[in-house]
């Protein structure tokens, strides 16, 4: 008789109580993240405009439209440019700088503090700072160019169809490379020095040591950084929205800015959801590919 209450009390302590600890977080997360995500999939199969009481199911029509939408492809192309340049460059710069600092310099902490400063800045502030740096008349870049007698090079960088995207990429790079630097520096401090020293005794030059000893040991962190940057690259929004809003003439439109306009300016909730599905699938594929690669590597 006395066994049952005790086992009940036991299972209360072992099963129900931990769930009680998880419940508040689970409730908030399920209602405000998981459920909206399920709804995004639902919306993408309707032609809802955000106002009608019913959501008409239209099957995959939105997806068919999306794959035939030249502006979607143009935006995606800009995301891919952003990713190709914006992933590789900050990782490489971060790696080079981390190596320089790691090889032993005075003021290591000071350099780290300074390189990381742009990372903590709101991307809106980054956008506003660079908007001013690129200003056609008083922007520091053009002022310097004019003072150097390079009047013909000076231009309204963000208003220039061919230059705007790359000008923004540079601003993004400024705000992001410090993140790669800090992560890579920490990873370098954790690598196995014995292999490194052994290679040195075997007569490997510093570049050989770097390439054959350091880089393989950094591989998991490099994979993680790349995945992280890829997800960021498919979702870039703030810096572009604040400076150019995707202009001039869609020259800097990316998936997120295009989606924002469709969903919240034109109230195309259904088609907007379809576009966000594109971003979501690309982000998830990118991150899971890299997680798999990483686990295989280990």
């Amino acid at each position: 008789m006395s066994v049952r209450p005790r086992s009940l009390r036991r299972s209360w302590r072992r099963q129900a109580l931990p769930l009680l600890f998880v419940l508040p977080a689970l409730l908030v997360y399920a209602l405000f993240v998981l459920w909206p995500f399920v709804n995004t999939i639902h919306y993408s199969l309707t032609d809802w405009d955000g106002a009608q009481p019913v959501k008409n199911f239209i099957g995959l029509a939105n997806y068919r439209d999306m794959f035939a939408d030249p502006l979607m492809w143009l935006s995606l192309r800009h995301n891919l440019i952003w990713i190709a340049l914006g992933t590789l460059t900050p990782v490489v710069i971060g790696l080079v700088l981390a190596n320089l600092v790691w090889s032993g310099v005075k003021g290591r902490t000071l350099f780290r503090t300074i390189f990381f400063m742009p990372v903590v800045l709101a991307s809106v502030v980054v956008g506003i700072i660079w908007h001013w740096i690129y200003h056609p008349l008083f922007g520091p870049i053009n002022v310097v160019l004019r003072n150097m007698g390079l009047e013909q090079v000076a231009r309204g960088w963000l208003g220039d169809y061919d230059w705007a995207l790359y000008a923004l990429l540079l601003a993004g790079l400024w705000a992001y490379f410090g993140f790669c630097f800090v992560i890579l520096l920490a990873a370098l401090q954790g690598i196995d020095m014995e292999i490194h020293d052994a290679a040195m005794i075997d007569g490997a030059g510093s570049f050989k040591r770097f390439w054959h000893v350091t880089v393989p040991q950094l591989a998991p962190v490099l994979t993680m950084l790349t995945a992280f940057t890829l997800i960021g690259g498919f979702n870039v929004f703030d810096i572009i929205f604040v400076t150019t809003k995707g202009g001039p003439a869609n020259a800097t439109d990316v998936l997120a800015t295009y989606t924002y306009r469709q969903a919240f300016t034109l109230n195309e909730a259904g088609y907007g959801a379809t576009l966000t599905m594109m971003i979501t699938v690309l982000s998830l594929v990118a991150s899971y590919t890299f997680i798999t690669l990483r686990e295989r590597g280990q």
Partner: protein
Amino acid sequence: MHSATLPRTSGRRGAFLLTLIKYAILVMVAILCLMPFVWVWSSAFKPSLEIADTPLALPREPTLQNFANAWIQGRFAKYFTNSLIVTVPIVGFTLLLSSLAGYAFARHYFRGRQTLFYAFLLGLTLPFTSIMIPLYYTLRDTGLLGTYWAMIVPQTAIGLPFGIFIMRAFFQSLPRELEDSGRVDGCNEFGVFWRVMLPLTTPGMITLGIFSFLGAWNSFLLPLIFMQRESLRPLVVGLMFFQSRYTRDFALIMAGATIISVPVIVVYIIFQRQFIQGLTAGAVKG
């Protein structure tokens, strides 16, 4: 003798040259990082005309007028209050909910633990874009749109996966005996968590608190969509509209940018050790 010393000195000179190049590169990058900060912060103290005249020089006649204009006419006082009103509860709720759940995931075995944890991990890879549209209509239909809750609740929800991940790692690192000694001393399960275990994760809470603060303070797309009413705008969104209204008055815009960036930089400088430790621990080990 001669032939023996010559390579050594040239080697030493070479090493010196290398060191010089190394420092030159690092210092140059540091200047490139700092320069925009110096421009913005110093421009905030210049009269508008001076910016147009000599955009790169330090202020000749420093003035606080820009700050006064931004604060009062630009309504930055209101936006600053709004940012505080949403950021404080976001940080509080994130810490509370993440440590409760992180504790259960780290110290208890229960049915469905693995599945639940993976469900939370999914949130680490799910971008905000993929939930923003239905979330907007949910907030509208529940009447939360047009209140501060429209930012507090979703921003907390988005931060939970990372928060639980961090707090779980901190709880896992605590020794089992502590928990048991709490039980022996007659604490109930919640008491063990609240009085014994939670105080020991203070470094973890500080790290998570800083991430949560920066995330909320700097968040843009979320309040842009969910806090459309002017009286609810946080600083970052306020600055964006401010910039499109006063396009020509750079001094005023720079004062606004300074008001937003200074608290963030101060928090970063004070807590940078915990911040960078938390960041790298998650990335390098996890």
